[in-house]
């Protein structure tokens, strides 16, 4: 049954992706062309997974959060913070390992901060993460002292622009993270606990689940993912842009998770499907780009997609439809 519902879910996203790719191919026949040059692959399709990687990584972290009925609005700002830390550390001459450790540690700290406010002070996730959303970019600017810190450390840049086995590095990282996170939540009891808390918090408490520490861990993981995405984004442009790094990406990440079939009301989730959601979003972006429409068109299309998905998911719509259906056979006089 689970396998069945998952496969029916799966087909939705796969069909959506296929549809988007098909449209892309129709407006831009060269869309599926992939070439091999200088030891790596090139082409629109490769571009999709490369450009989609940061959102995919954010979506990996956002999925468990949304599955527990939460949301993290600060991931874009945390990306900027992590990028800023990475850039300043590498410019200061620290080796790559130290740079990465520092950037990711700061990102995890941001996640823990959110988790503390939510799990232990009982502040609504949306409200709690707003604080860092507002202040995060200020912190990032504080770290970079307001300028765009550029760097030239090839090892760090490799993370954003290099390639492994012909695939772009960001995509490789996203893939590894997806596989790792998926197996981690499914091979441990985490996945089950997350779904239990998201399905019925009260019953979870009655069952003796440690809800608070789990929620704390989830937000810390969300912070870690934002940190990884932030380092990639910085490495990609060889600099930390506190103002624009990760701008609005929190919204793309939420959208990816929702497209991936996780309800904003919590419960069942799938990390691979969220990643697929991110790929769908990026395929639309790339499609709009290659077909010659202005990139600003993206936003409008995204807005349309959000609305369609939400309307389809809306329990209320089902209620209304159900009410209309039930009226017919049992029609009675209405007051």
């Amino acid at each position, binding site marked *: 049954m689970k396998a069945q519902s998952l496969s029916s879910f799966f087909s939705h996203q796969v069909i959506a992706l296929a549809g988007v790719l098909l449209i892309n191919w129709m407006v831009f026949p060269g869309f599926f062309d992939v070439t091999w040059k200088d030891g790596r692959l090139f082409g629109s399709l490769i571009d999709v997974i490369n450009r989609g990687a940061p959102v995919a990584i954010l979506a990996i972290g956002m999925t468990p959060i949304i599955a527990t009925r939460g*949301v993290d609005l600060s991931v874009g700002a945390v990306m900027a913070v992590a990028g800023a830390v990475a850039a300043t550390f590498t410019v200061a001459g620290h080796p790559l390992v130290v740079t990465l450790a520092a950037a990711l540690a700061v990102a995890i700290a941001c996640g823990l901060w959110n988790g503390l406010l939510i799990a232990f*002070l*009982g*502040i*609504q996730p*949306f*409200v*709690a993460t*707003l*604080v*860092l*959303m*507002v*202040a*995060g*970019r*200020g*912190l*990032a*600017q*504080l770290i970079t*002292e*307001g300028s765009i810190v550029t760097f030239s450390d090839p090892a760090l840049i490799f993370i954003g622009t290099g390639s492994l086995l012909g695939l772009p590095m960001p995509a490789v990282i996203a893939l590894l993270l997806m596989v790792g996170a998926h197996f981690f939540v499914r091979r441990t009891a985490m996945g089950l606990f997350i779904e239990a808390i998201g399905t019925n918090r*009260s019953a979870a408490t009655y069952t003796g689940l440690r809800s608070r520490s789990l929620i704390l861990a989830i937000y810390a993981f969300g912070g870690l993912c934002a940190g990884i995405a932030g380092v990639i984004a910085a490495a990609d442009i060889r600099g930390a842009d*506190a103002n624009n790094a990760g701008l609005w990406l929190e*919204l793309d990440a*939420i959208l990816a998770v*929702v497209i991936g079939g996780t309800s*904003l009301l919590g419960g069942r989730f799938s990390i691979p499907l969220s990643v697929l959601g991110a790929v769908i979003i990026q395929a639309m972006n790339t499609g709009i780009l290659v077909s010659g429409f*202005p990139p*600003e*068109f*993206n*936003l*409008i*299309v*995204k*807005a*349309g997609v*959000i*609305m369609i998905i*939400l*309307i389809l998911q*809306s*329990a*209320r*719509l089902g209620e209304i439809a159900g009410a209309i259906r039930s009226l017919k056979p049992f029609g009675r006089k209405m007051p």
Partner: protein
Amino acid sequence: MNARYRPLMATTLIFIVAYALCVSQYPGMWSTRVLGNFLTDNAFLGVAAVGATFVIISGGIDLSVGAVIGLTGVVTAILITRLGLHPLVVFPLVLALAALFGAAMGAVIHFLRVPPFIVTLAGMFLARGLASVLTQDSIPIDHPFYRTVSSLYFKLPGGGRLSAIGLTMLAVFLLFGLIAHRTRFGSYVYAIGGNPVSAALMGVPTGRTTVAIYALSSFLGGLSGIIYSLYTSAGYPLAAVGIELDSIAAVVIGGTLLTGGYGFIFGTLIGVMLQGLVQTFIVFDGTLSSWWTKIAIGFLLFMFILLQNLVFNRQNGPAHLRKGPA
């Protein structure tokens, strides 16, 4: 003293103390000129924040307001410069469009029961996208009416200038303060924020009111967009990026409960002024950098969220999610 006034009193006190400290360091900040500029520079934020106050009191959120500012600015600029319409014809038109935009969001929120933050997020994408599709560059508005209005001001004693847009903001605060605190519609807004189920049972037209609240927020976003276009003499699709967060911060710092039900329009004015004060201080100081504004506002936001959590949880007793069954 009622506990719910504490955040507001705290804000007022912080503002007075902060202003006094600023003045003690830079006596130049104690002048009507600085005050006048205060109002002018923050007019668009203030107007948008009034809309956010209504939305937040009702227990909702509007993330689209910055995008609405950008869109109305662009549409205004296009209608004036390309179609040659008079601003006084254009203004009501764009305001009506903005209100309609908000009403549509409100309808989705109420009738499809979709969380407001995600609906207004879609609204934000839509408005920014439309604005960017219309133009990617700033469209300068060079119209005699604009020149007249931007140079319109009252002279204040001490050489300060109370500009037309600053005055507009004050008028908006006054008018919408009356609407919030003295009309049936205002009481419906508080009622929905307090408990939408009770409100509906007590006869509050929740659907109509919700639609009206988001229409009002977008209307004020539109007005703010017009003010912004007057302020900058241009329409720019990326105008006022992130202003929704500043306005939410202003509302919360002004003593409005982010989860709805409590709040004051006047508090929002102080919240806006406090943000303006931080900025002005940084300008006066010269050595401090602009990012301290964001950090300071984030910190204030955090303190007030914490304060509200303490005040309102204490007041409403321990958070028993539901009654212990018999």
